[in-house]
């Protein structure tokens, strides 16, 4: 064994500690979510989810040890094969997997099942890093933009086919990584503008107001400074297109599958259908909102453990935290995530190797998206998409894939002294 391969001193222990803090808090919350005061079952009892999660945690630690012991070059060298392997697995899932709620997400033998969609995240991150590490790769140029998007889109399409829109959406978080790697800012401005327009168009009942606002903005642009006739025409066309877009949106929404339509509409008005599509959000908000400043106390919550909140130990695990530990508990967990993400940015920035930096930003992108969207959906700031809270939510696939995702980066970071500076 090369003495340089595992250098304990170079491991970023802050990140590792935050990881374990989140995993342990998550584990306690899973127990709280499934806890039943009338049935005396301890947190270690493997007949309940907290006991099973402990098994997942144990195996995750084994995975960590394997990753840390592996050669740091392994991941870079195997990036493309790993990517292709999971693409094949994704392709096979609909044929070999087991259907749950009309979705075929997992594949496996007997009770051991894995969700290929979860693992494809780190595989895609490795592939993107491998693909983009070439010194010539420049995201400000359209042909490289297309290449990068192609690597991203293949797994996205396969996952949408399952169909698992929530997981597919996660891949678009790579836009954060693309931003760091130089994708022009104008795309983000336009993108954010369009999202704002979509939200406004869906949120405001009468499109006339929005159309009026667009016209006013276009007129102001035209009147500001001297504009050539071509510019005036261009602005006018953009204005007309935007207004048309606004009006066509209702039509587009009406063509969406009904459950997705409902999820979108419920975001703006959860009381629209409190027992149907609004149920999850309403109950989730009740659970979190009833926590108050300091919460009801550990295992004292009523909303999550009495099943008022669906999926309370997986995607809605944050409800248990909010209900039993209140705003302060939520603050602590959000602070841990923010610290983790900030730390990861610092770690990514200290890489001399472009592959490692890109991979690090992939990790940041994926974690940011999960953390942000998962909590936002539990408090009604985002439509309900079935994605877990990293390290927190119950489930082997989820915990393993986030552990692999994070620790490959920690491993590569700890070996950064050995890596050649290959910055573009």
């Amino acid at each position: 064994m090369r003495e340089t391969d595992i250098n304990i001193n170079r491991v970023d222990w802050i990140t590792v500690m935050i990881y374990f803090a989140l995993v342990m808090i998550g584990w306690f919350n899973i127990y709280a979510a499934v806890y039943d005061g009338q049935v005396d079952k301890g947190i270690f009892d493997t007949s309940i989810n907290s006991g099973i999660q402990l098994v997942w945690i144990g195996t995750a630690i084994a995975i960590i040890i394997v990753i840390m012991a592996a050669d740091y070059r392994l991941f870079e060298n195997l990036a493309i094969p790993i990517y292709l392997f999971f693409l094949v697995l994704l392709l096979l899932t609909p044929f070999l997997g087991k259907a749950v709620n009309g979705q075929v997400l997992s594949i496996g033998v007997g009770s051991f099942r894995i969700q290929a969609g979860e693992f494809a995240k780190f595989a895609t991150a490795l592939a993107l890093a491998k693909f983009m590490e070439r010194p010539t790769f420049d995201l400000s140029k359209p042909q490289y933009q297309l290449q990068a998007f192609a690597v991203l889109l293949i797994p996205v399409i396969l996952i949408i086919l399952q169909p698992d829109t929530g997981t597919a959406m996660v891949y678009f978080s790579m836009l954060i990584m693309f931003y760091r790697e130089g994708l022009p800012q104008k795309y983000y401005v336009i993108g954010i503008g369009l999202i704002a327009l979509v939200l406004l168009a869906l949120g405001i009942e009468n499109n006339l107001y929005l159309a009026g606002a667009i016209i006013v903005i276009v007129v102001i642009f035209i009147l500001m400074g001297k504009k050539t006739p071509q510019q005036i025409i261009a602005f006018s066309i953009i204005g007309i297109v935007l207004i048309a877009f606004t009006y066509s949106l209702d039509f587009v929404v009406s063509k969406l599958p009904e459950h997705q339509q409902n999820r979108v509409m419920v975001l703006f008005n959860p009381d629209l259908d409190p027992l149907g599509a609004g149920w999850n959000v309403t109950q989730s908000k009740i659970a979190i909102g009833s926590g108050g400043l300091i919460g009801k106390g550990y295992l004292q919550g009523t909303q999550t453990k009495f099943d008022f909140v669906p999926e309370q130990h997986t995607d809605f695990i944050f409800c248990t935290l909010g209900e039993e530990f209140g705003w302060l508990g939520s603050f602590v967990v959000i602070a841990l995530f923010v610290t983790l993400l900030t730390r990861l940015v610092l770690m990514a920035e200290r890489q001399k190797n472009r592959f490692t930096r890109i991979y690090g930003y992939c990790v940041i992108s994926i974690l940011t998206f999960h953390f942000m969207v998962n909590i936002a959906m539990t408090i009604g700031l985002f439509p309900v998409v079935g994605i877990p809270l990293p390290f927190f939510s119950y489930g082997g696939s989820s915990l393993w894939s986030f552990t692999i995702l994070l620790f490959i980066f920690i491993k590569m970071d700890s070996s950064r002294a050995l890596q050649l500076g290959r910055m573009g």
Partner: protein
Amino acid sequence: MNDQRPIVIIVFVFIISAVLLTKLFMIQVLDDSFLKRAERNAIQRVVDHPYRGLVYDRNGKLLVYNNPIFDLMIVPKEFQVKDTTRFLEIFGITKEHLIETYQAARKYSYVKPSTFIKQISTNEFARIQDFLIDYPGLFIMTRSVRSYPEPVAAHALGYIGEISGRQLERDSSGYYVQGDYVGLSGMERYYEDQMRGKKGVKYKMVNVRGVDKGPFKDGEYDTASVAGKNINSSIDMELQKYGEMLMKGKTGSVVAIEPKTGEILSMISAPFYDPNSLTGSDFGKSYTALNRLETKPLFNRPIMATYPPGSIFKIVQSLIGLQEGVLTPETTFACNRSLVACHNHPSPVNLFGAIRNSCNPYYHQAFRQIINQEVSSNTYKDTEIGLDIWREHVMKFGLGGTLGIDMPNEKGGDVPSSKYYDRFYGNGRWKYSTIYSLSIGQGELLVTPVQMANLAAIFANKGYYYTPHLIRAIDGDQSKIPQEYLTKHDVGVDAHHFDMVQDAMVQALFGTAQRALMKDIQIAGKTGTAQNPHGEDHSVFIAFAPKDNPKIAIAVYVENAGWGGRAAASMASLMIEKYLKDSVSRSDLEKYVIEGKFMN
């Protein structure tokens, strides 16, 4: 340019987190509506209904109790049956019934319980209880309804029913809520506060399917219900039962009182109804049906029907005359039938003879002595003064106003005052010849059967009475009964005046009510026949016995039964025998009363 981008990403993460924490702060700390909604979700307030007090008769026999009723409930979502044949066998239902009720329950609610089998008997409940564990989604719900071991004394006991909207509005205590049961008539209503007990509250946690998840905060906020107090009634159930047997098929009242205490031994209103019919889920239907009947079985005659007292009132007149000093036992008048009709008897008569023979002309003349004492030279004025003094005397006998019995809706009857005649004829335009009908208990005079029984008690007690009441003790404690029933009322007539009157009442039976005579018990009584312009006269009889140390005073009023000496006296006599001797030996008389068709 790219150097700033990591900072932009960090700022982005911070902004998003700030937005999340702000929104969390808004719903968790600033807005407390979520906490309330959470409590509504998971914490169920279950009212623990108290056990309503029981009613016993004076000998400790149960009159009213709470009968548990078991309903088998079904929750369709949790309901599972593996072996249908065995299931049908255990619960004794047909497959069609199973399918039908299951589908009806599903239609009502998938998760909420519906009734699967109604009103399972206690025995049946005990049998199926052990099997219930094998069938998830089935459970037993217990209710209790008022039950009556013997279907007697319906009017006196009263009934309970769901509180009405109007009662809820008037309830200032805030104790009642919609759907609560409350005493609506009889003792159930009068002693509502004692019998209802006190509701308790339990807070329990339920999950999203409504399944019980144990007490909230270990029952810290729970309060236990307090059972209602048991009532010991003064009613003698055996006597009541016997009286109702005698009154079957007749219309009228029987009221028996223990003279020394005012305790009502029996109170019969005929026609009557089975109190068991006004319980449980059939209440509404039965009530409407009873209310529609022309015979008005719900009408509580002993306290609500008012009649002219007729001849029994002559005793009151005698006592007032004696007390006023205008009559002496020797005062003699001729039976002058030109004044008022009478029947054949020796004439002239003294006071004793007048009572014994119920001589109408005697009282026409005696009453004039009471009214016109020549206090004023003006005849009209003199009559006015005399009437009001007389009225004061009469009122002291518990007439002309409610007695204050422990039942709701008591009527007071009527004893006319001078003002009444002034209004009717004009001041100074009426005199004795206008009001002479009062002398023989007719005219404007109206009394209730319970007032008549109270008169009998006054005669028995030689001048005092206790307000008649149905209560004897609360939770076995006699001192807890309302104070007004322990207060002696003096009628303002000296006791020695009663001696002669009592003797005359004993003799009266030989004259007018020979059927009522008994060999070994001396009964003092007075018949009456209240004129009824609408048909056959009403038969009236009051009595007490034994003459020395009376144990029972009784009034019997049988509508349309003709002359008082016949039906009413016979019935009173049988009741006295039943009460004093526990059994009746005169089966001929009994047969006569039971088979007598006194109604038109």
